[in-house]
């Protein structure tokens, strides 16, 4: 017993002293902090599964530059405070080379000061535009922003010649941030917001708010939110006989929304990542093979794919490509190489980053889709 203790102490001392040779076979350490449980778990869960699947595949093929990847992961539960603690631990104790994560904007924004101070590349999977605007030296992101979603919706409205719009949204972070972007962008597209209603995300009936919208002379309704509430809004509109075009956000781009809203979902439009309509893309679309390949691999292992897992795919593959170009996991070199990401075809779109753009996606990354016959159809 006693000798065992001594051996442990000796071993750890050696380890601490760095006696272990730092050979080429050392794994590259990838740190991640995702909201696998908690309210954002439907985002974090597929993200972690994607990372695990990809790391396993990459390692089976011999790793990156002959070195295996070791994934060190902590579950933040969607709590920003915990995210900060875990990121400190990843940087100081686990001494990871690169960070991928921050499922939610709250988690990501909270850890940015720590990341910038430590000087370690971070690729976030969260939505808020504030993550990369203004540009931060070490921070990148792969998920679409809510501003892009708002712009895509307004673009479609302009095409249809509709200018008077009613907004209805929930009280969650995603809803409010989307709401803010809609208000901010509306003047640029010549759109006036003539009704602005809200609901609680756990409410069971929104007919009161929609009745007010019915009485206004709105030409279209935009409902920016996720979860079950947008499905209730959709059903309530049908119940009240409101025959206006209804736009939802990319937050409901999942099969569940169609199942919940049922027939009422017919004709609903929303900006969605190409992943949900991968099969419908023309064969000339460079994204198509990437999307179908990721979808096939994920579904073979875990079941239905989600766009959120796709953000993790993009994040990890951008990092892996950058490490390859940099010749190893040197933090500063990898950072420079991530920034030089150009023409990378991911699930969210084609990434063209630069010193002024740490996301690298443009509006084409979103497809405007309509629900027809219980399925997504690309609009023009």
């Amino acid at each position, binding site marked *: 017993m006693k000798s065992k203790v001594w051996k442990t102490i000796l071993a750890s001392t050696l380890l601490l002293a760095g006696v272990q040779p730092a050979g080429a076979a050392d794994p590259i350490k990838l740190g991640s902090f995702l909201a696998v449980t908690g309210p954002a778990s439907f985002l974090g869960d597929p993200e972690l599964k994607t990372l695990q699947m990809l790391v396993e595949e990459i390692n089976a093929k011999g790793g990156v530059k002959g070195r295996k990847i070791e994934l060190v992961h902590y579950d933040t539960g969607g709590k920003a405070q915990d995210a900060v603690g875990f990121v400190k631990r990843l940087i100081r104790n686990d001494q990871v080379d690169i960070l991928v994560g921050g499922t939610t904007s709250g988690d990501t924004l909270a850890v940015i000061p720590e990341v910038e101070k430590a000087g370690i590349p971070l690729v976030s999977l969260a939505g808020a535009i504030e993550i990369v605007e203004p540009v931060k030296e070490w921070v990148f992101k792969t998920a679409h922003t809510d501003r892009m979603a708002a712009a895509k919706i307004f673009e479609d409205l302009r095409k249809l010649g509709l200018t008077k719009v009613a907004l209805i949204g929930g009280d969650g972070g995603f809803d409010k941030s989307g709401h803010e972007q809609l208000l901010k962008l509306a003047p640029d597209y010549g759109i006036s917001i003539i009704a602005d209603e809200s609901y609680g995300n756990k409410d069971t009936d929104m*007919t*009161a708010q929609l009745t*007010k919208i019915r009485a206004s002379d709105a030409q279209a309704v935009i409902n920016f939110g996720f979860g079950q509430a947008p*499905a*209730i809004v959709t059903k309530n509109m049908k119940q009240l*006989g409101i025959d206006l075009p209804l736009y939802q956000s990319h937050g409901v781009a999942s099969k569940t929304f169609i199942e919940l809203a049922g027939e009422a979902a017919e004709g609903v439009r929303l900006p969605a990542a190409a992943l949900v309509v991968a099969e419908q893309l023309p064969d000339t679309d460079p994204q198509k093979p990437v999307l179908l390949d990721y979808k096939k691999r994920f579904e073979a292992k875990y079941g239905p794919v989600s766009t959120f897992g796709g953000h993790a795919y993009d994040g990890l593959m951008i990092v892996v490509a950058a490490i390859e170009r940099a010749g190893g996991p040197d933090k500063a070199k990898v950072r420079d190489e991530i920034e030089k990401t150009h023409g990378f075809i991911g699930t969210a779109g084609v990434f063209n980053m630069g010193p002024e753009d740490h996301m690298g996606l443009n509006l084409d990354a979103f497809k405007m889709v309509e629900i027809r016959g219980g399925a997504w159809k690309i609009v023009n």
Partner: protein
Amino acid sequence: MPEQLLQFLATGVTVGSIYALVGLGFALIYNASDVVNFAQGEFVMLGAMTTVALLGAGLPLVLAAVVATLLTALVGLLLERFAIEPAAGASVVSTIIITIGAAIFLRGGVLLLWGKGFHALPPFTGDTPIRLGGATLLPQSLWVLGVTALLVALVHAFFNRTLLGKALLACSFNRNAAQLVGINVRVMLRLAYALSAALGALAGILVAPITFTSYEAGVMLGLKGFSAAIVGGIGNPMGAVAGGLLLGVLESLGAGLISSGYKDAIAFLFVLMVLFFEPTGLFGHKTAERV
């Protein structure tokens, strides 16, 4: 404007009847043991989620609903037997805390078993809205209203007309005296939890086509149902219905006429006012402190 007002009222009644139906479930356990069962919302969720699962397994809706109600009743019974009964003699507050624990346990169990997704049940009689003047109502809302009325009558009759119901009430008035006159308090309590769970499950199945369901659905429904029950006077089935409808109409008028952002604040302010001026609820029994 009158057309709008009519719709606000219709909305209020729809939402209110859901609260009322959930609130009703609190009465049984409260009447038997003075305990507010905070797992009542989870019974509601459990009924709906079990029905969804059974439907998925290929059972017809009616059969799935019946089996789900029975299964939830069994869960209620087991909860009483293995969580409440071992703590017999504990204070009411301790028992209430046990029910909060049970609620968390049930949520976790459902999460592990059926995942985090949202589910809908098909409406019983179609989705075509019914027009009432300028307002529209879903057929499912009528189902909720009708069954609520029926259950209120049944619960009322149970407590006032049947020996079993009176025995149950006796347990809460004075446990020792009830035991002395030959009432098996233990069996009565098990019965109360089983019936209460069944009532909750029924409520869950009825409202699921409107509100959808998920492992967390019981939290909000339980809270609103509890508010309805205390506004009306907890333990009084009629009170729960009146409280639920009042709350629903207030919320919808608040959202429609004042601001949708403040509708919950308006409803909860009303609950606070009621508790302030009528601590036993609008229709509660005025009880003197028992020594």
